[in-house]
């Protein structure tokens, strides 16, 4: 955290100075470790085992926050008798279908109930069942937590094998150190104290990334650390508005406000779509209001009740259309045109050579950035061009490079990692042809409307005709006014165009329009709430009048949980929101994330629906049952509880189960994306992890061109322990060549005590650290670490596994810059007959025609 979010870390340092214990769990000893109280070196890719060990410790030693667990989590909920745990099936849950390589999720449901996943079934498969009430409403719960099938008992059994010894054997963390961490955490939780978890992509970029976070959630729920000040699980996101681009998603599977994109097979019409996504209980019962308001915002007057609010203007999904599939599709010739705005995937994404292969198949490519990135220049500045394997003149891609306006040259809001919308103002005009994306997209839209004007007769062109595109223009370059877009995002009443107060004002009858319901209220009364900049010294410590947080300016989600079931703060030290008996409402330092007038003692009636099902002790209003989920009965692909699986490529056999890897992980079996053996691959004996440095920014487009940053970290390097250096003959300051089946790279060597080999079952496991900022352009240069990494993904969110894989290292500059995607793997293939991965096989994507086993040959397109 000190590495990549130094200013955020200021508050951690302040906490430390006030007596907090900082525990840093990381394969490397980083700048964070340097100032932490405890550093826990861990084998990359084994965090679930570590966190699972803590879960077990909490349960076995009865250190959980019982009042919290009983009232605010689903620990008492009873699970269907059908459920089979990984304990019973050696690492698989019940419901595994060998044919499809997927789980039947029905096997995990609650007793007599099928609560919908948090945001409807959008993350689920087609098994969406008739909707039933939540288990608490239905009476399927045991507050004594004794029922053998209650979540608590299942949890206890599930994690029983995550003993400190097992943690030591899996993570390489000495038992004593593990116990110290577990005890410190437990001691610091309860009424008077809270602990927080901070994480970044070191947790998410794994083939079971979602389950990493789930495990942390279980720990935090058991300790009562969610919804309370100083608690929580805090994602430290890497880009200025990466949160915003998820809320208002430039993501294939979502519409603004986490509304799912329609699925072709299931969502055949509006009614079906709404029925599938509207939760009978909890806040997602409001779903139709948000969706209809969105369509009203997008298609204006054209959207009527009769035509289903233009529901059939929306394209539909037929599978996973996420980034890696897009690239593979591109490499196979399926994608013709590609827009890249403010991103440099050739450096920042996995398997750069495969990306470039994809770019070469395009008809046209549009890149918008500050300077010509590696992605924009792939046709003349790339290893394969330098090697003479590909000739520039043979590449048919037409490339447009548009200079982008900087944040100081445009109005707009970033949403930061704590959901805060912060407005930045234009201070100067963008230079030359540089323009904002807002301006570019707006003008592109105008042109397309014009180009299609003659063809509006065809139904498929009508969305272009009807999409609302009237924004006031301003400035010498006649750019669209960003505040007008913000107003649309906020929502307004259709009749008079007045901005709505917030999402509670939205309706499903077409009377309101709203571009993103969770952002509703950010332009209340015509005031740009995101632009508020009241100094912190003029307000309380929550600083509610600085900018604006979604939803409803609530700074701490689920903060109802900061008070006990009766509505009183758990302790004076930790008070945030509480029930004011006199006013008859929830009050506090923060805006209550709860129905303000709903008293703590409120119990929903058995036949209540939607938000009326939210009881006075149900802080987690977005969940169908209002509880924090220790057990996720639905919504996840790879199991209702986290399981430790080894990464796709590991140096050890899974110490916990026979099942080696996440059975549902997504693989791309292609010649240009070869994998190593699942474990003990003699060619690749070391664990590799990648990361960022303070001095650079992700793929480098915003740092490698700046002399003030480049001089601080001028070259690509790798970090190795003195033991590994001795084993491989690496010299500090010298060069090393690092190889995987995908590619080979060179790097300078830092031999350092910050890298430590871990002892696992008596064997020394070495890890290699690789920052990934560099490539061939800019001032500071070096090889791109991400070239080494293959496409593998988590099944829930399709995030790649880049934080733990295997590789080889040798001293010297021996790279010939070969890559699997172009020249063939830089390392010899092992006899394919002997080459076996774990069983059962993982799901393979994409299907049939593009996939083939490694070792087979297939002509390049």
């Amino acid at each position, binding site marked *: 955290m000190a590495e990549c979010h130094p200013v955020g870390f200021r508050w951690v340092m302040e906490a430390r100075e006030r007596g907090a214990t900082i525990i840093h769990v990381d394969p490397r000893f980083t700048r964070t470790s340097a100032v932490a109280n405890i550093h826990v070196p861990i084998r990359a890719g084994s965090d679930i085992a570590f966190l699972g060990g803590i879960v077990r410790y909490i349960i076995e030693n009865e250190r959980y926050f019982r009042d919290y667990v009983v009232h605010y989590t689903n620990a008492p909920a009873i699970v269907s008798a059908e459920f089979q745990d990984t304990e019973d099936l050696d690492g698989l849950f019940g419901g595994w279908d060998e044919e499809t390589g997927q789980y039947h999720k029905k096997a995990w449901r609650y007793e007599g109930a099928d609560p919908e996943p948090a945001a409807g079934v959008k993350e689920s498969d087609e098994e969406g069942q008739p909707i039933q009430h939540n288990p608490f409403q239905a009476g399927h719960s045991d507050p004594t937590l004794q029922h053998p099938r209650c979540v608590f008992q299942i949890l206890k059994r599930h994690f029983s094998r995550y003993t400190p010894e097992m943690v030591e054997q899996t993570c390489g963390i000495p038992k004593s150190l593990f116990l110290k961490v577990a005890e410190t955490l437990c001691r610091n939780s309860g009424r008077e104290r809270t602990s927080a978890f901070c994480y970044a992509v070191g947790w998410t970029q794994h083939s079971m990334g979602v389950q990493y976070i789930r495990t942390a959630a279980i720990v935090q729920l058991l300790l009562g650390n969610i919804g309370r000040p100083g608690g929580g699980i805090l994602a430290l996101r890497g880009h200025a508005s990466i949160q915003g681009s998820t809320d208002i998603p430039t993501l294939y599977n979502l519409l603004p406000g986490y509304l799912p994109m329609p699925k072709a097979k299931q969502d055949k019409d509006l009614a079906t779509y709404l029925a599938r996504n509207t939760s009978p209980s909890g806040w997602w019962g409001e779903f139709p209001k948000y969706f209809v308001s969105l369509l009203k915002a997008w298609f204006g007057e054209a959207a009527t009740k009769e035509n289903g609010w233009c529901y059939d203007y929306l394209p539909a999904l037929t599978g996973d259309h996420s980034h890696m599939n897009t690239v593979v599709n591109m490499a196979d010739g399926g994608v013709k045109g590609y827009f890249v705005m403010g991103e440099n995937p050739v450096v920042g994404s996995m398997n750069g050579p495969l990306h470039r292969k994809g770019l070469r198949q395009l008809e046209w490519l549009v890149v918008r950035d500050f300077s010509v990135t590696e992605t924009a220049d792939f046709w003349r500045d790339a290893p394969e061009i330098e090697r003479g394997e590909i000739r520039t003149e043979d590449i048919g891609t037409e490339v447009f490079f548009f200079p982008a306006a900087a944040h100081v040259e445009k109005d707009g809001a970033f949403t930061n990692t704590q959901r805060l919308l912060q407005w930045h103002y234009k201070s100067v005009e963008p230079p030359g042809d540089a323009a904002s994306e807002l301006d570019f997209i707006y003008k592109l839209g105008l042109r397309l409307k014009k180009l299609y004007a003659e063809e509006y007769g065809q139904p498929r062109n009508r969305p272009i005709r009807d999409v609302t595109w009237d924004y006031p223009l301003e400035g010498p370059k006649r750019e669209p006014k960003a505040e007008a877009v913000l107003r649309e995002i906020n929502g307004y009443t259709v009749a008079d165009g007045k901005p709505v107060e917030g999402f509670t004002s939205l309706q499903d009858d077409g009377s309101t329009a709203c571009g993103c319901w969770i952002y509703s209220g950010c332009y209340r009364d015509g005031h740009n709430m995101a632009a508020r900049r009241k100094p912190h010294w003029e307000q309380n410590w929550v600083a509610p009048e600085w900018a604006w947080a979604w939803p409803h300016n609530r700074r701490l989600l689920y903060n109802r949980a900061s008070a006990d079931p009766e509505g009183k703060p758990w302790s004076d030290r930790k008070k945030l929101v509480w029930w004011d008996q006199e006013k008859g409402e929830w009050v506090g330092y923060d805006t209550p994330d709860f129905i303000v007038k709903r008293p703590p003692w409120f119990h929903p009636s058995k036949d209540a629906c939607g938000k009326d099902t939210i009881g006075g002790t149900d802080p987690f209003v977005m969940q169908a049952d209002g509880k924090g989920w220790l057990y996720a009965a639905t919504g996840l692909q790879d199991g209702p509880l986290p399981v430790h699986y080894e990464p796709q490529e590991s140096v050890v056999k899974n110490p916990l189960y026979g099942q080696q890897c996440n059975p549902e992980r997504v693989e791309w079996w292609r010649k240009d994306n070869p994998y190593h053996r699942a474990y003990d691959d003699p060619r690749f004996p070391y664990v590799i992890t990648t990361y960022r440095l303070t001095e650079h920014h992700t793929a480098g487009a915003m740092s490698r061109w700046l*002399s003030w940053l480049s001089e601080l970290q*001028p070259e690509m390097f790798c970090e190795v322990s003195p033991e590994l250096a001795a084993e491989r003959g690496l010299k500090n300051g010298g060069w090393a060549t690092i190889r995987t089946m995908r590619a080979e790279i060179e790097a300078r060597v830092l031999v350092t005590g910050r890298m*430590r080999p871990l002892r696992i079952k008596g064997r020394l496991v070495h890890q290699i650290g690789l920052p990934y900022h560099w490539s061939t352009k800019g001032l500071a240069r070096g090889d791109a670490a991400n070239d080494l990494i293959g496409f593998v993904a988590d099944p829930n969110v399709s995030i790649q596994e880049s934080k733990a894989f295997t590789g080889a290292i040798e001293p010297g500059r021996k790279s010939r810059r070969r890559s699997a995607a172009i020249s063939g793997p830089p390392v010899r293939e092992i006899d394919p007959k002997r080459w076996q991965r774990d069983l059962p096989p993982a799901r393979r994507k994409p299907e049939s025609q593009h996939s083939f086993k490694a070792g087979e040959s297939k002509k390049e397109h």
Partner: protein
Amino acid sequence: MAGAKGFFTDTTLCIGCKACEVACKQWNQLPDDGLLFTGMSYDNTVHLGASTWRHVAFIERPVPLSTQDAGAFSWLFSSDVCKHCVRAGCLESCPTGAIIRTEFDSVYVQPDICNGCGYCIVNCPFGVIDRRSEDGRAWKCTLCYDRLREDMTPACAKACPTESIVFGDLDELRTRARVRVEKLQDAGMREAYLYGEDAASQPGTEGLNAFFLLLDKPEVYNLPPDPAIPTKGVGRSWISMAAAAAGIALMAVGSVFFSKLGGRS
């Protein structure tokens, strides 16, 4: 507004982010001084110089901190800067008056005056001030003299995310530093001590206006253990010179005198 100002750099709060280095370059619009990989931990800056007025040192030690559970290892960071010595070698040696002491008790090189004689460079006991050959003038931290004139905090201290660099009135800083050391020692960090906080602790400079809280020997941070500015002992040199001058004169007179004798002999 005026009055003695300075920095207290508390290395126990430093996270090695180098914000100070960049904030300094940004405000003062300094150029880079080479993109060279050094192999010295994360320190590719190496030292203070004409174009680098803040430098974060990175020290990897096989020694644990007494308050940390992280194996037999620790990683120390320290943001180095011009010390703005109470008695400053550069200032006292500067022949042109380009270097002056300001109303904030800081030491400032006037770029419109400096003629690049280079004498200050061999007079700085901390190796701070330097000349860039192309430019020909001596440069170093100005304690953001221009900002102080507007009652603004120096760029590095303002940027520092963890308050490792604190700017303020020297009296307050000294008190704060002493309280801090006491607190750290009480918390078990026996190795914490102040470096150059006053004349008593560093008689050779009569104290530093930019002083430090360190966790290891000064040498580990590339700081001199007992620095003294040359001018403090210059009297002896002058005496010695007087003697030498007298000696030459005597020798000359003697030669003239004896030459007479020699002529006769």
